[in-house]
């Protein structure tokens, strides 16, 4: 991505003097921008879970009554008698007992056949398309970044959007809203010379001052200097969120469990978090899926269950909705490596008390695959997003996604 030296180094008007080293934010609730959007629900939090690599939908929600399933999945198919039945035609992978328990409590909506037409089947292009909600790739910012710009711009809360991730997910890339990003809080602070603790504040001030200059980068919304400022401001708040926190759910010992526990801590600390993002990888199962996929689904299912148990235990689940996405599903027929190649549509999960519990959409149509052997699309992913934008975040989804994406009805419009 192009930058210019002029943009980086010459625009230094934003210098922060040492005497001005006060936090430029304060934690509070609705901002004036939020108040200007009548339908916004400032107390609600959306948790986005990205399954990286392209999750195999057919082995996640199994069309167990379709005889073609066993034919197409002769190597790695789930024994149809073992599925956790959702309705008369579809069932969860048998390892997903945690998510099934939430289903049984009417807290899960399954949205089937989600995707977009004419996919190139590239991970990276498809990921960009899902991040930006734009198959033409003309959008510079993420779909939730655009939402954040419309609702949160001007907010001085540095933690309105946070990613538990190694890098900033493009979904949250915004023009005006910055997103603290980290995998853990263990070293999420500016450390200085232990031999001279009295010099700590001086070093922090120097760090802030050099980052106070405007180092804008052409064609990117973020700036290096802004990252430094946001690092300090978010760190000051986040250092305490784990203090005395007792998890009320049995998180599995993996990065997703740890990430969702951190998210629960942030929610519990009442920091005004609106979007919290977490990723889990390993789903690109071209080979050996028979060995690797079930453990991944176990991690996902158990982590989500622990997360809602934890929220329930702290009385926090009412204002939290979790949604999953993945860049694509996988080829209907398994390959010669006991795996699956890149596909198109897949089912996704929406979890929380606001859902209209049930399966939204048909089972995948295995009798009518496209010329590449891939599944057809029933629910455009922009309808999937739009339903969350309008019914959970109270936003004008057409302003963010463009007009014409039907609401899929998986959220309770009168939830309050």
């Amino acid at each position: 991505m192009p930058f210019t030296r002029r943009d980086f180094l010459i625009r230094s008007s934003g210098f922060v003097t040492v005497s001005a080293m006060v936090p430029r934010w304060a934690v509070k609730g609705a901002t004036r921008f939020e108040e200007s959007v009548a339908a916004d629900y400032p107390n609600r939090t959306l948790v986005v879970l990205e399954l990286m690599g392209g999750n195999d939908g057919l082995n996640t929600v199994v069309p167990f009554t379709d005889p073609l399933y066993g034919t197409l999945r002769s190597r790695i198919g789930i024994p149809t008698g073992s599925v956790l039945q959702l309705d008369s035609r579809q069932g969860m992978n048998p390892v997903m007992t945690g998510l099934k328990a939430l289903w049984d409590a009417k807290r899960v909506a399954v949205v089937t056949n989600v995707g977009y037409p004419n996919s190139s089947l590239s991970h990276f292009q498809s990921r960009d398309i899902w991040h930006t909600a734009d198959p033409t790739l003309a959008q510079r910012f993420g779909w939730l970044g655009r939402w954040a710009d419309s609702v949160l711009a001007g907010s001085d809360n540095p933690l309105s959007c946070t990613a538990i991730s190694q890098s900033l997910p493009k979904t949250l890339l915004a023009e005006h809203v910055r997103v603290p990003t980290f995998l853990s809080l263990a070293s999420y602070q500016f450390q200085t010379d232990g031999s001279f603790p009295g010099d700590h504040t001086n070093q922090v001030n120097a760090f802030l001052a050099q980052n106070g200059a405007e180092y804008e980068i052409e064609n990117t919304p973020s700036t290096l200097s802004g990252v430094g400022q946001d690092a300090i401001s978010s760190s000051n708040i986040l250092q305490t969120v784990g203090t005395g926190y007792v998890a009320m759910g049995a998180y599995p010992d993996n990065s997703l469990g740890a990430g969702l526990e951190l998210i629960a801590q942030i929610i519990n600390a009442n920091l005004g978090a609106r979007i919290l993002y977490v990723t889990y990888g390993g789903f690109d199962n071209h080979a050996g899926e028979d060995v690797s996929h079930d453990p991944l689904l176990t991690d996902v299912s158990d982590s989500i269950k622990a997360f809602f148990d934890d929220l329930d235990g702290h009385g926090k689940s009412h204002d939290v909705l979790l949604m999953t996405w993945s860049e694509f599903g996988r080829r209907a027929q398994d390959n010669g490596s006991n795996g699956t190649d890149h596909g198109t549509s897949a089912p996704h999960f929406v979890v929380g008390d606001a859902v209209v519990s049930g399966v939204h959409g048909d089972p995948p149509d295995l009798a009518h695959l496209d010329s590449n052997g891939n599944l057809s699309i029933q629910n455009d992913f922009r309808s999937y997003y739009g339903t969350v934008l309008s019914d959970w975040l109270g936003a004008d989804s057409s302003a963010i996604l463009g007009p014409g994406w039907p609401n899929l009805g998986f959220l309770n419009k009168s939830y309050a």
Partner: protein
Amino acid sequence: MSVNWTRDAAAHLLRRAGFGGTPAEIDALFARGQEGAVSYLVDYDAIDTSSYESALAARNYNLLKTIGLQQWFMDRMAFSPRPLEEKMTYFWNLHWTSGISKVKGATLILNQNKTERTLAMGKFDDLVLAISQDPAMLVWLDNDTNKASKPNENYARELMELFTLGIGNYTQTDVTEVARALTGWTVQNYNKATNYNQATFVNNPNTHDNGSKTILGQTGNFDGTDAIGIILNHADSAGSVSGRFLGAKLWLYFAGTEAADYLVDELQGVYVSSGRMIREVVRTILLHDDFYADHTLKTWVRSPAEYAVASVRMLEADSDFSSAANSLAGMGQVLFNPSDAKGWDWGIAWMNTGALFARATLSNTLATNRGTSGTHFDTTALLAGADASTAEKVVDLLASRLNVDDVSSEVRSSWVDYMNRNDDGSLGTWTNTSANVDKKVRGLVHVMLTSPAFHLA
């Protein structure tokens, strides 16, 4: 218009074609003149590495472990007398590195790195063929299980999308047809008994698809070598597709900006006329007026490995790169273990709040290490022979050494202010005493290493 060859231009060249230089190295490169400097870097086979290789071997990095491989590679980046050889090896590492978590065999990963180094500047065809038959890559992108009748598309797709042509320059049919051509290229002796380290390439005729394939408009009973040839020869109305793809990516890597169309055309032309010699494309870039233009200076966001290496090299520190290797995950780049085939996104994507703190923690470890192991440098040596009597002079000296002397006057003032500031926050006057050097010079190094100006090369 010819380049105004200055010492700053030499420093820029050394930041981009290497990992930054010491004042003496910049002086020496500047003295060669522009063409001499570029030739010295590019035609690096002339530089003897035997004493460095001996010193590296004596460090005894554990090459059977990921951390040992990371230490070994960063040591090479920092201390090899051939900086561009390592910078190009690192380019290929970023271009198509395979992940050890899937490949498992550390020796296979090491061998892939050695292949990239050996062929880094040669004919692109040779490198693409070697990587396509590289055991780590065969396992990483599943071509080891790509067999006739039920092909596995993983490598075939990324070969075209990520490695040679770019998306939009092939169809899904080309993917399945290239996959068929690549059937039979697999590994043997890949097993747990040898910790997966003994695998070698084998072409298994029994699993190769001998049928006719149609790849990018050509039809025949192609094998993997044929497919690679067709891919690299592929041209559209704008000429060589791989020449555009590779030229643009190398330009971005070295110049830190997207290549304008006329630059892509020029690099594509060199790629074709040289017989796809990578060295000539790189030479063209490093001699190009646009490479030295203002708009390319300080635009490359150092990746985590480059950041760690540059700090060691520019401070003339000694390092075993253990702290750097241990910091890579937090900084967002576990060398030799990318999360997917694309590797890491470059540029501003490296920078986020967590990664920034991880960089700051690493540089604090470097700046405050007063011992003689790990990563350590000599504060008094940094000031030796210079007038370091005032805060301003120390700031200017270190800013020049770290190539961060291009900051605004306000930022410079903040550094001077830091030097003069007392523990109670009051403003004093820094004086050159050994105690003040130990405290504030180390502190200033830490602060400068965490400045935007040092995250950029």
